[in-house]
C-alpha cells in the first residue's frame, strides 16, 4: 500500500474518533443542574446538535469504509 493511502486510512479513522470525543464532551457538559427558560433552550440546542452529530458519525463511518474499499481497489490494480 502507498504511504499516502496509509495516511488516508488513518485520517478517516481519526474522523470517527474525534466525532466520538466531541459527542462525549457535549454529553458530559449536558449534565447541568439548571432550570428555567434558558436551560430549556440550552437543552434543546444540545439535543439538536447531538442528533446532527449522530448523522455525521454514520457519514464518517461510511467514508472510512469507502476509503478502505478504495485502498483495496488501488492495491489490486497496482499489484504486479
Amino acid at each position, binding site marked *: 500500500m502507498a504511504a*499516502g493511502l496509509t495516511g488516508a486510512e488513518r*485520517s478517516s479513522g*481519526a474522523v470517527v474518533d474525534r466525532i466520538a470525543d*466531541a459527542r462525549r*464532551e457535549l454529553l458530559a457538559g*449536558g449534565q447541568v443542574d*439548571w432550570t428555567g427558560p434558558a436551560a430549556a433552550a440550552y437543552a434543546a440546542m444540545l439535543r439538536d*446538535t447531538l442528533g446532527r452529530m449522530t448523522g455525521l458519525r454514520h*457519514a464518517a463511518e461510511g467514508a472510512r469504509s469507502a476509503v478502505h474499499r478504495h485502498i483495496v481497489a488501488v492495491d489490486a490494480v497496482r499489484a504486479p
Partner: protein
Amino acid sequence: MTDPDEGPGLRVIGGAGGTRARIETLTAAAARAERAAEHLDAAAAHARRAVALVEESAPWSPVTAANVRSAAAPLLSGWGGLGARADDARVVAVGLRGAAEVYSQADRDATAALRAGFIALGHRIGEAGPIAVLVVGGLLVRGAVTAGAAVLAARSLRYTPAPIGLLLRVLGSERMRESDGPAGYFGRLLGGPGLLPEGLGPPPGDVVEVVLPVVAATTIGLLPGRMPLGRDPVDQAARLLRGGAAAATVLFGTPLPGLVVAPLVAAERSRGSSREPEPPRDVADVLRQVDALGDSGAPGVVGVQRLDHDDGSRSWVVTIPGMQSGDLLDAPAPTDMATNLELMDGWSDDMSEAVVQAMLQSGVGAEEPVLLAGYSQGGMAAMRVAARTSDMFAVSAVVTAGSPVGGMPLADGIQALHLEHTHDYVPALDGMPSPDAANRTTVIRDLAASPPADGSGPASSLLARLVDPIRRSHALPEYIRTAEQVAVLRDRSVQSYAEAVASVLGDGTAEVTEQRYVAVRVPE
C-alpha cells in the same frame, strides 16, 4: 422571602445548588462545549486530508475514489458538516458563558459596594471625633423616632371619617398588604389591627451584619491617633480588644499561657452511665451530643466518638461546645470570650488547640473520615480545626449551629453546613454574609414560622414580641429542631451535604466508643 419548596421558614444559601456552584457548573459545561468544537474542527481537518490523499490515487481507481468523495461530502458540507457542528458547539459555549455571567452579575450585587461605602463613612465619622459621632448618632435616633411617630399617627388616623382616613385604609388594605415591593411594605406598615404594625419585632440578623462593621469602623476611627482601617473592621476591632484584654491580664489577672487537655474517664464512670452510646444517624443527633457536653459538669469539654463500621472502616465525630463564660481576661476554661476574639481575628486559640489535642489523644487516623460539629463558639473552633489540620486529619464535614463563620476559610474538599436563625445575632457578629460556595451550605430558619421548641405559647406583649425571638434564636434546642427540619428538605445543597455526613456516620449501625476530654488553661 421563604421559598415554599424549601420548608417551613427555611432559606438555603450556597452549597451544591447555590449560585456559585451553578456558575462553576455552567463554566465547566462551556469549556466542554469548546473542547467539543476543537474535536470537530480536528475531525474536519482529518476528513479533508483523507479526501486529498485519496484524490492522489484516483487515476488508479476512479470509481472507488468517487465513492470516497461522495461519502465524505456530508462531512465537509459548509452548512451541515463538521465545521458547521463545530460552530454549533461554539454557540452552545457562548450561551453557557453568557448564562454564567448573568448569575455572576446577580451574585455581585450592590450590597458589597454599599457595605464598603458605609464602613468607610463610619471610619471617617469616627476619625472626626466623639462630637461628630454624637451628632450623627443623634440624627439617626431622631430620624428613627420621627419615622415611628409618623407610622403611629398614620395608623391612628385610619378610621377618621375624612379623605385621609379613606386613603390610609386603602393603602393598608389586605390586597395591598399581600402585594410585593414598596406598596406591600407600606401596606403591611399601615394595615392590620391595633396601633402597632403586625410585623413589628427586632431587626433580623442580616441587619446586624450590615450595621456591625460600620460600628466597628467608627470605633476604630475614634481611637487616639490615626488608625488605618483594615480589610475587615470587625476582625480588626476584635484584635484590638484581645490585645487590650491580654495587657489587662498581665496587669490585673494571672496569665495562663499553658493548656492541658485530659480525658474525662473518671468523671464519666462516676456518673454511673453503663449504657452504650447510640450511634448518631444525622446532624440533629450530632447536635444533641453537642448539647449533652453540658452534662459533663465542667466547662471546656470536647467530645470524641469513634464509629467502628461493619465493613471494618472507622470514622470519627468530634463535638465542641459553645462559649461558657464571658471572661475577657485569661480564665481556666478556654470556652470564654477571649477565645471568641482569637477565633475572630485569626490568632491561634486554645479551644481549637484543645480539639486537635483531643483528636490526637483519641488516635484519629490521618485517613479516617471526621465530622466536626460545634455550637456557637464551638462552630468557629470546628471551622478553624478543619482549615488548619488538612495535613493531619481527613475532615469530611463540618456542622456549625449559630456560629459567626461567614468569613472563615474552608478547603474545597470539606462540606460544611451552617445553621442560623433569622433573629440570632451571634452568627452575624463577624459582620460577614453567609458564603455562597459549592461546599458551604447555610440554612437560615425563621423561628416565627413554627412554635417554640420548649412548648411555650406565642408572645403577647410588645416587650415579649421584641425579646422572645432573640431569646429563642440562639438556643441549642432550637438549632436541634432546625437540623430535624433540614433533614427532610429536598434541596440539592442540603442533600449533597447529607451525603458527606453519611460517609462519616454510615447507616447508623456502627459500634460507638465515646470519650470526652477537658481542656484547662494553666500557668506555664
